[in-house]
């Protein structure tokens, strides 16, 4: 049994590099194209395609174009493991990107780890994701780093008794714990913590409960769709408190779905289109030209990931071993989210994202001028 397995897994390694000719280099993407999370898969594609347009338009990497194979997993662990076997057995695939949700990503991790194929989970913030093995990497912002920054923003807004609403998933929970810890260190008293389900649309009773805990501000650890709903309904339930929303709320959709309800809402973001850095401006300009809308943090993350992959292929060669070696060594990759991304070889995550403080004014995200809400 063991022998058979080795024989099967050894196949890709046995094919010499030269024999693979100068065709395209492939990345495997495992993510949701159908099912309830399909919208995130669609955003990934936009980010990927934009990055590849740039890379391949400039002649690819050392003359070889980059391509990705997107296999739909519906973010379902049963399908993501099958996709993993497919990628592992496909000698063309040098790196795997995704999956979207933690159950789907982490179920596939053992398969990638055994095959020594890098699993790059660029949305996987679950603190244990990169503990699945030394081939699990992520450039998703670490909540341990992000939430103290969000608290700093809250403190700057004068929140002393914030109420926290968070999505009741591994991501929301990690974020909430980190925020509450930062608040404690910073001397603020968290007035209320409310966890809600991702399928929830009606937040009015939750908001009444939050209101009655007498907070001086709301902190939303939500995705943009829920965030927009909460802001609208907060207005309807008569809450006039300032609202601060975490980075995953940054999206043009937040403005569209929130309408007048998100006016004056404060948003922290890692990615901001008005950032003057040339790589950001280039990304935003091309994204607008192609999609007609502003990019959000999901497509920015996908874009960054493709750029990183190109650097890895360029510096360490289009092989599975090259990807792993490159991630251990690569430094200061240009990134629209991080400025320059460098991986910590122990946690296999990126440190040092740059955060912007925004406020919604007249239906647009604008940089916060530093004035406290009245």
């Amino acid at each position, binding site marked *: *049994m*063991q022998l*058979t*397995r080795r*024989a*099967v897994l050894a196949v890709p390694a046995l094919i010499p590099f030269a024999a693979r000719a100068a065709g395209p280099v492939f990345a495997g993407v495992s993510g949701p*194209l*159908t*099912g309830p*999370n*399909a919208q995130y898969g*669609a955003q990934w594609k936009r980010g990927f395609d934009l990055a590849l347009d740039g890379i391949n338009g400039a002649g690819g990497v050392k003359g070889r174009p980059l391509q990705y194979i*997107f*296999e*739909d997993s519906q973010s379902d*662990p*049963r*399908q993501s*493991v*099958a996709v*993993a*076997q*497919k990628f*592992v*057995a496909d000698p063309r695939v040098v790196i795997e990107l995704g999956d979207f949700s*933690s*159950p789907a990503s*982490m179920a596939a*991790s*053992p*398969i990638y780890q*055994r095959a020594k194929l890098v699993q790059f989970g660029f949305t996987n913030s679950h603190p*244990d994701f990169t503990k*699945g093995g030394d081939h699990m990497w992520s450039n998703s912002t670490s909540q341990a780093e992000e939430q103290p920054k969000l608290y700093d923003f809250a403190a700057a807004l004068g929140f002393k008794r914030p109420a926290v609403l968070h999505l*009741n998933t*591994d991501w929301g*929970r990690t974020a909430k714990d980190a925020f509450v810890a930062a608040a404690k260190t910073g001397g603020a008293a968290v007035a209320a913590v*409310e*966890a*809600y*389900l991702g*399928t*929830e*649309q*009606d937040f*009015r*009773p*939750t908001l009444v*409960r939050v*209101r009655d805990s007498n907070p001086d501000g709301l902190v939303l650890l939500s995705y943009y769709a829920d965030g*927009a*709903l909460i802001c*609208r309904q907060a207005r*309807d*339930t*008569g809450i006039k408190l300032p609202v601060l929303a975490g980075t995953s709320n940054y999206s043009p*959709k937040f403005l569209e*779905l929130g*309408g007048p*309800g998100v006016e004056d809402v404060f948003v922290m973001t890692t990615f901001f289109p008005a950032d003057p850095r040339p790589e950001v401006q280039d990304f935003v300009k091309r994204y607008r030209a192609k999609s007609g809308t502003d990019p959000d943090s999901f497509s920015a993350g996908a874009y960054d990931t493709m750029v990183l992959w190109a650097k890895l292929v360029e510096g360490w060669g289009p092989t599975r071993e090259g990807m792993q070696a490159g991630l251990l060594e690569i430094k200061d990759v240009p990134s629209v989210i991080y400025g320059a991304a460098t991986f910590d070889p122990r946690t296999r995550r990126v440190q040092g994202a740059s955060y912007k403080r925004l406020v919604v004014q007249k239906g647009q995200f604008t940089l916060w001028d530093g004035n406290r809400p009245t």
Partner: protein
Amino acid sequence: MGAWLDYTINGLIVGNIYALLAVGLALIFGVSHLINFAQGSIYTAGAFIGWTCAQRLGTPLPVTMAAVVLGCAALGVVIERVGLRPLAGSARIAPLLATIGISFVLDQGLQLLYSPDPRSLPSPLPAWRIQVGRGTIGALDILIAATGLVSAAVLFGFLRFSRLGWAVRATAQDSEAARQMGVNTDAVNRTVFAIAAGLGGLSGLLVGMYYNHIDTAMSFQATLKGVVAQVIGGMGNVPGAIAGSLLLGLTESYGVALFGSSYRNLFAFVLLLIVLVLRPNGLFAGRQAMSPEPLTGTFIAPSRPWDVPRWAVAVCVLLAALLPFLPNSAYALQVLTNAWLYALLAISLTLVAGTLGQVSLGHAGLLLIGAYASALLALDSGLPVWLSIPAAGFVTAALGTALTWPAFRLRSHYVSIATLGIGEIVGLVILNWESLTHGPMGVTGVPPLTAGTVELDSPQASYWVALAVLVLLGLMQSRLLGTHLGRTFRAIRDDDVAARACGVSLDRYKGLAFAVSGFAAGISGAISAHLYSYINNETFTSQVSVLALTMVILGGMGNVLGAVIGAVALTGLPEVFRFTAEYRQLIYGLVLLLMIRFRPQGILGTA
């Protein structure tokens, strides 16, 4: 005190929204005794038709509403004609599956047409708001309430005073008799579907405007809440559906008030169970005497199963066992491992749904119990994996039977809804019982499959383990079905009144069937947990329960081999259609519909 007023208002507002969903479901159930799983998809379609009119064509609200109602009514007529009427002669379970297939096709079609991105659907109504308590209500709240009440009143008038309405009521009471009295029952069904779909679409539009949010993934939740609301009110009872919806909204709102928002759905489903246990036919249904005719006998198709010879089964098993020796088969093995694990779930479900006639929609809950039991026993209690998996089987058998106990006294569709609620409750308890289950963080680092000191984590090894367990439990179940137990289970399915007259204690045999079923499902969940290394409360959702039921119906109710074939087909098809990328779910739905159309009693037939 002021806050309670706010909670009450908020409960009524959301109850109002549920009411729109529930009324359409109640109408269809009242006439065709069918839970229309496609109702949520019609709701979504209505929202998108409305979006197209309002945002693209710039129509004013009354025109938008009319377009949505007409468009969705037409959709309802098409669904009735294409999806359901051809199944009129077959057992009721086939149309149920057809509505599931239709909802697949509709959702995916919409997703392809409109992209999966959420969209805003701003309300064109004036922005004035009235202060009530410390919160406010707006024009849209009033429009939604008015729509619910007016449509209920119009329906009432239609059913009571128009000739077609009489025909609808006559068909609802006894469609056979109505047909013999010259009622055109096809026309009645068409009318009912048109009305229900029109209402469903309208609710999609209004709710979409209320939240300023529509997306193509909102169907299932809409169906779920609508079904719960109408069951609380009494299935097929239109005024009851409205009352049930308001009660559901209030319960959720007060539940949040008392325990916080993470307990919200827990409250909703516990309310559902309490109502079902105390008033098995819903709060507002009249008390029923003994069922006038054997209900279940007509629910399951009378058909003679195809007898597959034993040697053929043995050859198939042998071939399956030899498959890992093919080179480069890791992907196929993984897909088939999934298929075997689903097949374990399907034989578990086919025992209770097919053989015993208790159509459970809560089997995902059993998978979760099995997965968590084995993972936690292995991690926290240090039990070796080869012991923790069977232990999880026994835990699931015991816990699953105990949890389903309240549903034992229920009949036909009520069993399905109660078990759906129980499945959801299991997931929500796991999410909230942090000290035991690690809550939303899930369980990480679940050890891989091992036998003694040999790690069985290669694709080949996991494949053989799953196959061996499936063959073992499949043989065990077939053996049981050949004894007096199989006979007794089937007798309960065909006519529980007559079974009791023969001296059969329903509780005892339902308990036994659910225990055997829970064991297999628990083992399936446990093996999955060790294969995935990470599980959380969303690893198995109610959609898995629906998929499992689809497998069971497709294979032939109660048919062990059929369940395996159904599982292989429905696990394999989406993989086969992988090359079609975004279209694969659509094609899958269409294939499913074709299968139901041409073999409504399942591939191998009811056993």
